[in-house]
């Protein structure tokens, strides 16, 4: 008891290191992740990205602001990757900017992981553009509300905006259908809410670090249409995106194979729900008319493993789980010591 009372904090550090390190190793080796149940917040985030541009009946222009740095990348990168993943699969036009000096690196990281590898058909300047970092914090947002080109004259590589095809027709924030923001502090979610979403009435969704989240919950669902907090939010969103991407791919294959849109959707949902019964689909009534190539593509799409970079969030929930359990245990232990001591103290 005396040992516990004067517990050297290094023992706690060691326990924490084990609780985080061992799951990382195990997950790294086995690839097993814990199941996620998305909360309404994550669902709202997903839906908002999903429907962007529909109101105006056009391919959506999405402004992606990556306001974080390597320090918080562990928490926020999975969100950023999933966000780009969803936008790319959906076919949104992506405009990346950052109010943090090291943000462009984070943008590049996500672009390299998602677009370059999985969507090589997307063209820089037509489907996505990296406008880079702009100093000036919320002032930049304010100015962008009026005229984007005063702050951003070139993209990150120095190409003037007039030479970038997808920049035509973009003059200010109002030309975007959605602002999606990943934030690690100031300037970040709060500034976007104050100076973009409330001022110009543009839908805003935001992912942020766990520390920031409590401050921004009040803005949901009015000023913030969707909110992802910490790695938990990232994992939920990632799960949603992965599910939807698979479904979307299946639907695409079915539609391409000639199924009417009204039938392809439900069927794809059915397939996506039970990928292990893949052999029975091909003989099921609805799919029986498919060509062998389409069937092969279908099986491929339904059973192909999700690439690792799309599972980062869910994988990080493992260490998170054990770390939290350790914290709960430590708090209980601390109190056991406290009460044992108090009883002893009270007795004397």
């Amino acid at each position, binding site marked *: 008891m005396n040992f516990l009372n004067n517990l050297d904090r290094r023992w706690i550090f060691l326990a924490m290191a084990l609780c985080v390190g061992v799951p990382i190793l195990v997950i790294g080796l086995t690839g097993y992740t814990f199941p996620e149940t998305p*909360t309404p917040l994550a669902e709202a985030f997903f839906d908002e990205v999903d429907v962007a541009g529909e109101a105006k009946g056009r391919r959506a222009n999405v402004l992606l602001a990556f306001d974080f740095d*390597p320090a918080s990348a562990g928490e926020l990168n999975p969100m950023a990757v999933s966000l780009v993943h969803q936008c790319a699969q959906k076919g949104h036009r992506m405009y990346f900017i950052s109010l943090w000096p090291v943000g462009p*690196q984070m943008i590049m990281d996500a672009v390299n992981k998602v677009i370059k590898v999985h969507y090589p058909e997307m063209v820089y300047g037509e489907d996505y553009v990296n406008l880079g970092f702009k100093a000036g914090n919320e002032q930049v947002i304010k100015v962008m509300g009026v005229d984007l080109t005063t702050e951003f004259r070139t993209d*990150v590589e120095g190409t003037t905006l007039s030479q970038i095809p997808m920049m035509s027709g973009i003059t200010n924030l109002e030309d975007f259908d959605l602002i999606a923001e990943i934030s690690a502090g100031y300037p970040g979610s709060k500034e976007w809410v104050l100076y973009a979403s409330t001022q110009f009435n543009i839908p805003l969704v935001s992912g942020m670090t766990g520390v920031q989240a409590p401050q921004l919950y009040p803005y949901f669902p009015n000023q913030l249409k969707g909110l992802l907090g910490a790695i938990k939010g990232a994992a939920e969103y990632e799960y949603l995106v992965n599910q939807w991407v698979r479904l979307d791919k299946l639907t695409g294959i079915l539609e391409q194979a000639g199924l009417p849109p009204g039938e392809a959707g439900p069927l794809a949902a059915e397939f996506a729900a039970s990928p292990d019964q893949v052999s029975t689909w091909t003989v099921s009534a609805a799919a029986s008319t498919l060509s062998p190539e389409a069937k092969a593509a279908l099986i491929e799409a339904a059973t192909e493993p999700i690439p690792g970079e799309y599972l980062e969030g869910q994988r990080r*929930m493992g260490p998170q789980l054990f770390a*939290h359990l350790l914290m709960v245990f*430590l*708090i209980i232990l601390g109190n056991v010591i406290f*009460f044992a001591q108090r009883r002893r103290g009270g007795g004397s």
Partner: protein
Amino acid sequence: MQILTRLIPLLITGIAGLVMIVSAFIPYTSEWGKIAGQFFNILAAFAFVLGGGNLLKVHLKKISDQGAGWGYSGVVLVCFLVTLFVGLFKIGTYPNPSYPDVHFSGETQGTGSGFWWAYEYVFKPLTATMFSILAFYVASAAFRAFRAKNFEAILLLGTAFIILLGSVSAGVFLTDWIPNAGPFGDLRLENLRIYIMQVFNTAGTRAIMIGIALGIASTSLKIMLGIDRSFLGSGD
């Protein structure tokens, strides 16, 4: 009253403050506030030079004094100068595709450049390491501080458990038996966590924020009017 050290700074403070307020209400003057902000940015940019100079001075002095830990100062200086050199002279950058022969057309932080390399392989891991220390400190702080000493502490303790468990799969696992759609669905840990965050936490945060906002307003006013001059070094 000393003109240079008191009157002029106070005048600048007062006028800049007034401009900021006026520009919020009178659209004609809205540019003025922006200009005031730009002035600050320019000053802050100059301050970088000041900061760099001070850094050099402090660490050179430490090295010349050879006091305890002067080796660290040496490391700081070497890193500072190397980074400055790599960045200023764009070491290892790839030129802009439009001007393939002009070395200086390259982006300082472009992939593959020296600056990028330092960023990617030195700065990024170091920063991430510092940040991850938090996990250890949170644990030790929680172990020490979360004692059910009184009623408030018990409330906080309970909340901590809900939030901790609710944000990992353990929470889902523990209260899986409550049907999500049923009348008690909100009692599932993961839902309870969001409820606490949205309602109690929000209410508390707002109360604190109102106090802070009023504090900021009144402090600003005091500073603008010169009632509080302590930041100019004229304490009590």
